[in-house]
C-alpha cells in the first residue's frame, strides 16, 4: 500500500521532469527558428495583432481601475500623516515596481496565453501541424516562433500602457476627485521616482514575465494531448502554471533588484 503511494509519487515526479525536459528542448528549437521572422515580418505582425492588440482593451480598463484604487487607498492612509501630496509617489512606485508587470502578466496569461495554447492545440488536434511537416514546412518556424516573439514583444508594451493608464487614473482620483494640487502630484513623482531604478527595472521584470508566460503557453499547446479533453487541460495548465511562475519569479526579481535598498 505504502509502496503504491511512493510509486505514484515517483511516477509523477518523473513525468514532471520529462515535461520540463521537453519544454527546454522545445525552447532550444524555437529560438533559432526566430531567424525566419526576418524574412517574413507579416507573420509576426499578424500575431502581434492577435496577441497584443486584442489584449489591449482589458489592459487599459484594468490599468485605469488599479490606478484609481491605489490612489484612493494611499490617500486615506497618507492623509492621517499630512502627507497626502505623496499619493502620486505611492501610486507610481507601486505601479512601476510591482503592479504593472505582475497584473499585466497575469491578465496576459489569462487572455492571450490561454488563447495561444488553445489555438496551437487545435492546430495539432486537426493535424494542421502534421500537415505542415508533410508539406516540408517546419511548424516551429511558421507557427510557434512568430507567436513566441509576438508575445515577448507585446507584454512590455502592454505593461507600459498599463502604467500610463494607471497614472492617469490616479491623477483623476487625486486631483479631480480629492482636490489635491496637480503641480504637487507631478513634481512629487518626478522627485522620488527614478527612471532606471524603478521604471526600467519594472520593464525588465515584464520582459522576463513575457518570456516565461509565452513559453509556457506555446509549449502547452504544442505538447498537448490532441483531444478535446487534453486541450482543455492544457489551457488550464497554461493559466495556472504561468500565473504561479509570474508570482514566483516576481519575488526572485524583486529580491535581486530592490534588495539593496
Amino acid at each position, binding site marked *: 500500500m505504502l509502496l503504491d503511494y511512493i510509486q505514484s509519487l515517483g511516477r509523477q515526479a518523473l513525468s514532471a521532469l520529462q515535461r520540463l525536459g521537453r519544454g527546454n528542448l522545445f525552447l532550444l528549437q524555437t529560438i533559432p527558428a526566430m531567424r525566419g521572422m526576418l524574412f517574413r515580418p507579416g507573420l509576426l*505582425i499578424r500575431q502581434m*495583432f492577435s496577441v497584443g492588440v486584442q489584449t489591449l482593451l482589458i489592459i487599459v480598463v484594468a490599468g485605469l481601475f488599479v490606478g484609481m484604487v491605489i490612489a484612493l487607498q494611499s490617500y486615506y492612509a497618507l492623509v492621517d*500623516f*499630512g502627507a497626502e501630496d505623496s499619493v502620486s509617489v505611492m501610486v507610481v512606485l507601486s505601479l512601476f515596481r510591482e503592479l504593472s508587470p505582475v497584473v499585466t502578466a497575469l491578465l496576459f496569461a489569462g487572455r492571450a496565453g490561454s488563447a495561444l495554447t488553445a489555438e496551437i492545440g487545435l492546430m495539432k488536434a486537426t493535424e494542421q501541424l502534421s500537415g505542415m511537416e508533410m508539406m516540408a514546412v517546419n511548424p516551429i518556424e511558421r507557427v510557434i516562433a512568430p507567436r513566441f516573439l509576438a508575445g515577448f514583444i507585446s507584454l512590455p508594451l502592454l505593461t*507600459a*500602457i498599463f*502604467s500610463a493608464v494607471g497614472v492617469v487614473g490616479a491623477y483623476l482620483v487625486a486631483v479631480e476627485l480629492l482636490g489635491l494640487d496637480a503641480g504637487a502630484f*507631478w513634481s512629487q513623482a518626478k522627485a522620488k521616482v*527614478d527612471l532606471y531604478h524603478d*521604471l526600467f527595472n519594472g520593464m525588465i521584470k515584464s520582459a522576463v514575465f513575457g518570456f516565461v508566460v509565452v513559453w509556457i503557453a506555446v509549449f502547452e499547446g504544442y505538447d498537448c494531448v490532441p483531444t478535446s479533453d487534453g486541450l482543455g487541460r492544457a489551457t488550464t495548465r497554461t493559466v495556472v502554471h504561468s500565473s504561479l511562475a509570474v508570482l514566483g519569479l516576481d519575488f526572485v526579481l524583486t529580491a535581486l533588484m530592490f534588495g539593496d535598498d
Partner: protein
Amino acid sequence: MNTRTIEIAVGIFVAAGLAALFMLAMKVSNLATYGGDDGYLISARFDNIGGLKVRSPVSASGVRVGQVTDISYDSGGYEARVTMSIEPQYDKFPTDTAASIMTSGLLGEQFVSLEPGAEEEFLKPGNEIEITQSALVLEQIIGQFLYSQAEE
C-alpha cells in the same frame, strides 16, 4: 480582416506602447530633472546627515534648486561630505550661504535647505559651503530631554 487593417492596428499598438513609456519617463520619473550633468557642483560638510540620500532634493525657500549627487565620509575631519548639483539658472547664492538638513513634515524625507547670506560674492562651481547645520536626530533630542528632566 485584411492585412492593411491589421498592420495599422499593430502600428498603433506599438506606437502607443512606446509613447506610454516615453510619457512615464518624462512625466513621472526623474529623467527630466536628471540635469545633474548641466548643473554646477558645490559641497558642504555636516557632522551628521541623518537620513539624507543621494538624489535627495536641495531647496531654497522651499523651491527645489538641485539635488544631492554624492555623499562620502571624510575621515580627515570626521565629517560627512555632501556634494550637490545646483541647476544653472540658480547661480546667485552668496558665499556665506548656510546649508541645513531639514525634514519635510514629521516623518517625511530629508532635504538640504539653503539660506542665502549677505555677501556680495556668489558661490562658484566647486566651492564649499562653510556654514552648516546637521540633521536633527530624533533619538538625540529625546535623549537630551530625558537627561535634563532627570537633572531637575
